[in-house]
């Protein structure tokens, strides 16, 4: 009797579990709903655009991305892979296909260092494209520098990704994203009393917060409060109270999307939005964000480090169509994806200039370093690599606001006024990297 009961209980449990799993397997539609391309697969202009598959000796290209461990940045290398597939179908690099793959560092810097050392030691790897490691830029750069290996990184977040000799990110980074929100508030005349919220993480949260303070000081803006919280914080009441008490007219949030959503939910619960302008850096610019935070947050402002995903434009259209033709249906169509695509496209353009018989790490490194004045409608200003100890070519971004639950364009490009960019701007001019 008791055995039968236990068996039926198991059957019931398994049945429910199965049903639950099946229903949860349906693709997450929020991520890719509003970005679809209009170009058919055989009309895509990738690389040489010959329409003939490349059959020569493969050229090995790698990448390191954080794809698991609680953070998933893999949409950058996934988009790079889609573009390279398209290039390989269209003549490759003068007949030679690109053999591209990325590895997951699982949010573990030791693993990043191992993977980086692996790429550095493998002479057949000519370059790295579309990387997106959340934690390992510093350790990876140390390995690359020893081996004369260079990366056109898709997405960089911590400071180390922008102060490395062999890593150049396509995105602008959280510091530029935050400062440009402040500049937007200034333009709108809403920067009388600004409150900033972020994380107390070293080499990331503190670096962004310092950026806001430096810009504010240089431009006479009153920052009425800076609150850097622990990434595990749950109680947002003290923060809301401090914002209220500070008399802030606007708030800049520099937190990952999920934390920002939790803060906004707490503000809604307290009905504390008031007349304050609430803004968030590019970490919130995501197709799903608007519907998740709900109707209370109509008019919420976020920064976008590249072109808005639903905008027109030659490269944006190519990105969407390449993703439709060569990437998985549920691969995210987000800013990181655009960044990975653009990294792959710029790499392809540079390597196509080389003699196909002489594609080595040395020649490819020279070609990558030589990228300058690379224009794209995904960017605001031309991108470049150049020999330097710091790389932050993308320092001009756009602003979007939530209308009917989705992000729509608010302003066009704003050039960063970050005082710390002085040396980068000087290099741009003296080395003729732009214009």
């Amino acid at each position, binding site marked *: 009797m008791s055995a039968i009961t236990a068996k039926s209980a198991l059957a019931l*449990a398994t049945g429910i579990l199965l049903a639950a799993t099946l229903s949860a397997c349906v693709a997450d539609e929020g991520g890719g709903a509003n970005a679809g391309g209009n170009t058919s697969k055989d009309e895509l202009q990738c690389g040489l655009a010959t329409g003939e598959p490349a059959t020569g000796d493969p050229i090995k290209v790698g990448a390191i991305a954080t794809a698991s461990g609680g953070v998933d940045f893999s949409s950058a290398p996934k988009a790079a892979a889609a573009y390279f597939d398209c290039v390989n179908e269209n003549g490759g690099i003068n007949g030679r296909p690109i053999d591209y793959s990325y590895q997951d560092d699982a949010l573990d810097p030791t693993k990043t260092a191992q993977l980086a050392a692996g790429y550095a030691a493998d002479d057949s790897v000519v370059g790295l494209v579309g990387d997106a490691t959340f934690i390992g830029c510093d350790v990876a750069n140390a390995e690359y520098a020893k081996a004369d290996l260079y990366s056109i990184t898709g997405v960089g977040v911590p400071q180390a990704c922008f102060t490395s000799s062999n890593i150049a990110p396509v995105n602008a980074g959280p510091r530029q994203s935050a400062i440009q929100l402040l500049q937007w508030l200034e333009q709108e005349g809403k920067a009388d009393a600004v409150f900033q919220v972020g994380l107390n993480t070293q080499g990331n949260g503190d670096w962004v917060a310092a950026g806001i303070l430096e810009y504010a000081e240089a431009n006479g803006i009153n920052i009425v409060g800076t609150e850097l919280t622990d990434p595990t914080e749950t109680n947002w009441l003290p923060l809301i109270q401090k914002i209220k008490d500070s008399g802030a007219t606007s708030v800049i949030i520099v937190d990952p999307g999920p934390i920002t959503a939790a803060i906004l*939910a707490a503000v809604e619960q307290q009905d504390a939005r008031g007349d304050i302008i609430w803004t968030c850096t590019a970490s919130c610019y995501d197709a799903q964000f608007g519907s998740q935070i*709900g109707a209370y947050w109509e008019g919420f402002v976020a920064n976008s480090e590249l072109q808005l995903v639903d905008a027109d434009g030659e490269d944006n259209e190519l990105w969407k169509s390449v993703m439709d033709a060569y990437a998985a249906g549920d691969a995210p169509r987000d800013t990181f994806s655009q960044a990975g695509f653009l990294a792959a496209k710029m790499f392809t353009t540079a390597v196509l200039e080389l003699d196909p018989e002489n594609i080595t790490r040395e020649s490819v490194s020279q070609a990558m370093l030589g990228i300058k004045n690379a224009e794209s409608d995904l960017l605001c200003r031309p991108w470049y690599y150049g020999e330097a100890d710091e790389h932050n070519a993308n320092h001009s971004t756009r602003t979007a606001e939530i209308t009917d639950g989705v992000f729509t364009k608010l302003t066009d490009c704003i050039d960063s006024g970050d005082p710390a960019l002085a040396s980068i701007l000087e290099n741009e001019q003296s080395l003729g990297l732009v214009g």
Partner: protein
Amino acid sequence: MILPFIVAGLVLGSLFALSGVGMLVLYRTTGVLNFGYGALGAASAMLAWQLVELRLQPVLAYAIGILAATALSLLFGFLAGPFLATVNTLTKATATLGLALFILGIMLFMWDDKARTLRLPTDTIGFSIGTRITVTQLICLALATAIVIATSIYLQRSPTGTAMRALASDRELASMLGIRVRRVELLAWAVSGALGGISGLLLSSQTRLEPVFLTFIVIPVLAAVVVGRFRSLVGTLVGGLVIGVVQAVSSAFPSTSPFSNATPFVVATLVILYLQRRKVVTIEVAR
């Protein structure tokens, strides 16, 4: 103004207590301290969110979420129970870490790291008494208290409750007396899973809907169970509420705010020290 902090602390504390009761029922019946408890709640919340996104009736989605947590807990109890019964408490607890990591792995595989919120219809209904209180928060408080009282009465009065308590004191003896040990244990796994599912849903609405975050919320919950000395349901309720309120109120003052997240550990340590105050400490010397 300290009132909003007390209210927020009571709400969060009541959720710690609600989870704590679920952990305690299982521990007292089977001797298993389930570290996978937070993961069960997280799975319930993530599944409910996914179903709501797929335009399922929210109430139905929540019910399926809770059912899934119940089923997962029952399944683990069914498969691992017989083995766990033969090993010591520490090994039992360690085995549940496997459950936690397994569920967490599946969740991280199925859902990316984008922002999500679980919006309960009761979130938008509220009233103000110096601070805004929503119906969801009232439900949290009422549910925790009601479940503590109901479980206490059930364990005291009902035959199953008596059987559960008998199992807790001596499993062998209980089975010799004709108690269907497996059945009672599976019931405890199911009840514990259901409570985990319910608290997972409420916690995700009051804190953050993230698999990793919700999985590790088992730590303050464990602190509440420690305050209840792994025995007392009322003690667990009080423990949860104290931890919640101390944490929230200490976050209100700049001088104590940076330390507020250490509250569960501080409270648990103080309780353990207090309980050990007259025990003889023996120090074994390794040869």
